[in-house]
């Protein structure tokens, strides 16, 4: 037997074997591979959808950022304008809007986290502008002030058994209230006078002639 015989003998193999082979040949590529290609179609569609949605989200976020940046630039301009009128006295930032600028005139101090407003502020529209200030964590560690007369001014005063923190009033204070005469203090200041004060965080001020200054008397937590 030779190769040609074998080729001729191949013409007599069973029909069902040839038919089974024909089915595969007619299909072309294997179904397994086709299935892989088909399964990738939804994957690509999902990926494309994610990309499109992501792009839209990024665009919206960018627009939002631009809007926020515009707002913040406006805020910054206002802040800069306020900072221009702000000064630091070593214990507190005091910021003040320029009278007649169209803004509500107000005055505010942050001292050790305590906010005080004078009577003029209360009479105003009540709008305030907030700025951060360096906080003195422990008032006891702060050096005591010394008046022009060499008289040491403590940070706290005990008045009628109640402790008050002294915070200097930086601006001219117009005293409209009555002098408080019934209170006694554990400190004796020459010519010191207690006055009623209708503030948010304190109800008294003390005038110390040797320092020629008014001090808010803020009730201490102690």
């Amino acid at each position: 037997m030779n190769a040609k015989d074998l080729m001729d003998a191949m013409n007599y193999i069973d029909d069902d074997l040839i038919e089974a082979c024909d089915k595969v040949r007619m299909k072309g590529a294997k179904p397994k591979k086709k299935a892989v290609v088909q399964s990738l179609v939804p994957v690509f569609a999902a990926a494309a959808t994610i990309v499109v949605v992501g792009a839209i989200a990024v665009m919206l976020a960018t627009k939002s950022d631009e809007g926020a940046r515009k707002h913040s630039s406006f805020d910054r301009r206002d802040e800069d304008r306020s900072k221009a009128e702000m000064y630091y006295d070593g214990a507190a930032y005091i910021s003040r809007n320029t009278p007649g600028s169209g803004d509500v005139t107000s005055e505010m101090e942050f001292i050790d986290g305590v906010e005080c407003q004078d009577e003029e502020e209360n009479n105003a529209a009540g709008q305030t502008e907030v700025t951060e200030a360096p906080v003195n964590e422990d008032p006891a560690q702060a050096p005591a002030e010394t008046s022009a007369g060499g008289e040491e001014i403590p940070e706290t005063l005990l008045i009628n058994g109640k402790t008050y923190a002294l915070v200097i009033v930086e601006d001219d204070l117009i005293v409209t209230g009555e002098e408080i005469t019934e209170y006694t203090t554990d400190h004796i200041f020459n010519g010191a006078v207690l006055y009623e004060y209708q503030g948010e965080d304190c109800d008294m001020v003390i005038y110390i002639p040797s320092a020629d200054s008014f001090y808010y008397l803020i009730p201490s937590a102690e």
Partner: protein
Amino acid sequence: MEDALIVDLYWDRDERAISETQIKYERYLTKIAMNVLSDREDSLEAVNDTYLHAWNSMPPHRPEILSTFLGKITRRVSIDSLRKKTAVKRGGSEYEVSLQELSENGIEPGTMQENESEYQDMGRYISEYLRTLPEDMRNVFISRYFHFDPLKDICKNFGFSESKVKSILFRVRNGLKDHLKKAGYEL
């Protein structure tokens, strides 16, 4: 049209049997003929000869699978045609390449056996061996040595690399050789 109805047309000696066969199987048959002859005109002639052989065979034959019945006719007619042609000149058809491949496994080209019944017996042994193979290996072998499909077509149809197809063919040829030897054939 269903194969059974086409066969009925042959049995009824209805000439529509030829046209219906042409509509359904011309492409399939032309592919087999082209693989053997590598010539368009010769292939069309081989396919037309197939229709004539089918017309003459039915009746008395009533094939269960018309496609393979016609394919076998086309294959035989094409190989005969090629043998007549190669007596004049040698070509590079897939049939000849297949013969070369078989010779690589020690099955040398030689004189043909004249007795058709011997081919039928050998065909039965070949079928017997092919049934022992995995389906993929079996189909690759039939695709190559019955249909004479080029290797690149087999790779495409079965999703295998060329090296894998070559490996399959080599292993099946060796296995077939051993099987036929056991059956008493001298190779």
